[in-house]
């Protein structure tokens, strides 16, 4: 199999094309623009540069309903703009892939520096209840592989699937094998073949149902069940056991690469499917006295981990886009001392 030196963002673009991408709409934004740049040179797909991220996501919603496998890519500010329509796509059951290459926020923040500040936004950013599937790979090879998985999960769950990345992994160059992964076929019939009505209103089939609480409960249960079934096929995580340590260190994305350097002293757990949270973590965590989540935000995923484990979890926030092993070690020592 051909080996190739690829950038993280480029790997997403090339994998998407292999996974059957037909339609891409996006808006320039650092550090995600390379995905758009790579795709405009692909002859087999339609690419649109839109007026903003709201237009981008809505255009791919239309394109996906019309039968095209569709994707958009952005960073935090654009991802925030897309939130309303992400909820809308969940409500209308539209398969989409959304890439968010994170940078330091809030607001314009530090556009070229990596961060992991959009973790909770993935799950809670839109209003109302919805149940997204979110992957967060930590290498170029994994970005390539999980782009296929994201497209498959989107088709299987008929919902938007999010690939999280960060400006570190997104701009990283690594040599990877351009492997072929299985591709899930589209099951949703394209627009123009029937008389269905796709609506963001609570609905029963094609009929809007805005005053029946039971209809809404039924719809939510359907979404939840769908997410559980499909995400069950992608229980992706990495676990490096350490029998001599009583501490489990949890990290993901760019920061998990730094965590590898600490595997002599700590057990490491790295979720790749970050939402819905992989339940296997419950069994793994039982073996350790202390659980520490380190992440490049003020403490986001740690709350999800606590919610799963029902026990106190320590947090190490790494802020400002700089990954410094000394800082991490100092903070870990401090946690150890407090015990």
């Amino acid at each position: 199999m051909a080996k190739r030196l690829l950038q993280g963002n480029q790997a997403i673009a090339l994998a998407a094309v292999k996974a059957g991408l037909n339609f891409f709409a996006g808006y320039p934004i650092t550090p995600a623009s390379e995905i758009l740049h790579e795709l405009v040179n692909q002859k087999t797909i339609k690419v649109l540069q839109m007026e903003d991220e709201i237009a981008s996501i809505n255009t791919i919603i239309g394109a996906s309903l019309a039968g095209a496998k569709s994707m958009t890519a952005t960073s935090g500010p654009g991802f925030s703009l897309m939130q309303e329509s992400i909820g809308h796509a969940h409500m209308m059951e539209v398969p989409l892939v959304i890439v968010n290459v994170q940078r330091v926020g809030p607001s314009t923040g530090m556009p070229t520096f990596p961060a992991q500040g959009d973790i909770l936004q993935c799950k809670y950013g839109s209003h109302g209840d919805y149940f997204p599937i979110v992957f967060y790979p930590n290498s170029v090879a994994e970005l390539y592989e999980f782009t296929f998985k994201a497209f498959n999960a989107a088709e299987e769950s008929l919902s938007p699937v999010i690939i999280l990345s960060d400006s570190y992994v997104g701009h990283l160059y690594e040599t990877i094998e351009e492997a072929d992964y299985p591709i899930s076929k589209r099951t949703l019939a394209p627009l123009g073949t029937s008389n269905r009505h796709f609506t963001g209103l609570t609905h029963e089939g094609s009929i809007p149902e805005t005053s029946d609480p039971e209809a809404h409960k039924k719809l939510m249960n359907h979404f939840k069940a769908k997410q559980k079934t499909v995400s069950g096929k992608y229980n992706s995580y990495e676990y490096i056991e350490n029998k001599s340590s009583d501490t489990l260190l949890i990290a993901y994305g760019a920061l998990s690469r730094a965590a590898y350097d600490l595997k002599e002293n700590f057990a490491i757990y790295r979720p790749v499917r970050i939402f819905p949270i992989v339940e296997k973590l419950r069994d793994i965590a039982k073996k350790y006295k202390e659980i520490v989540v380190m992440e490049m935000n003020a403490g986001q995923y740690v709350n999800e981990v606590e919610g799963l484990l029902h026990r106190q979890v320590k947090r190490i926030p790494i802020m400002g886009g700089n990954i410094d092993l000394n800082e991490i070690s100092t903070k870990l020592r401090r946690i150890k001392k407090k015990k």
Partner: protein
Amino acid sequence: MTKELTYLNYLKQDRLPHQWCPGCGNGIILKLSCLAMEKLNFPKKGTVMVSGIGCSGRSAGFFDLDSVHTAHGRALPVAEGIKLANEELNVMVISGDGDLFGIGGNHLLHASRRNTDITVICISNAIYGMTGGQCSPATEISSKTLTTPRGNVDTPVNVQAIVTAHNCFYARSTTYHFNHAMKCIFEALQHKGFSFVEIKSQCITNDGRRRGFKNSYEMLMSYKEDYKINNNTNALEHNEIGIIK
């Protein structure tokens, strides 16, 4: 013998009557759209209706076609995505002035610039009817609404200028001028490229009654008084209706 109302085939008749207020203009525009599609023999499979949010946003669900009820203001990019993904489809948008000029104004600017081959029918009642009658981007100066109790001070959006600036099809009509409005939609549907039909329409419940109209008939008659057809111009005056290609 009564004539069979074949245009009704374009509607989901089990969903009729529609839920709009008595006297609303939306039903007239639903009928106009069906008649125009029928005249052009649009196949039901192969035609897609898209709408935004608001009273007018509920239009799409009544058509016996595949239809999409988008988020507020986003009917145009969704319609563009549909058309560009499958250029064989006839793609129509029915939405309101608040949706298309207000929250979705940026998309109107760019959809017309891209000249995407879709037809937009704007039910322009110059009011946010569904939310109770607030001032809209199409509300006339000095008009009293829920949010402009002393009269609106802002200039309404000049949508004709936006659409024609990009050399796209623009037509204006009213719900009173039934045959003229029908002609506008009919021609818009045949236009290759972006076409925009603005139909002035009455909302008695949340607009007219606040402005002193007794019923929607009076509002319709005011369109008869206020608007004159001009078939020979490059730019319609404020009180004119017509087609600019």
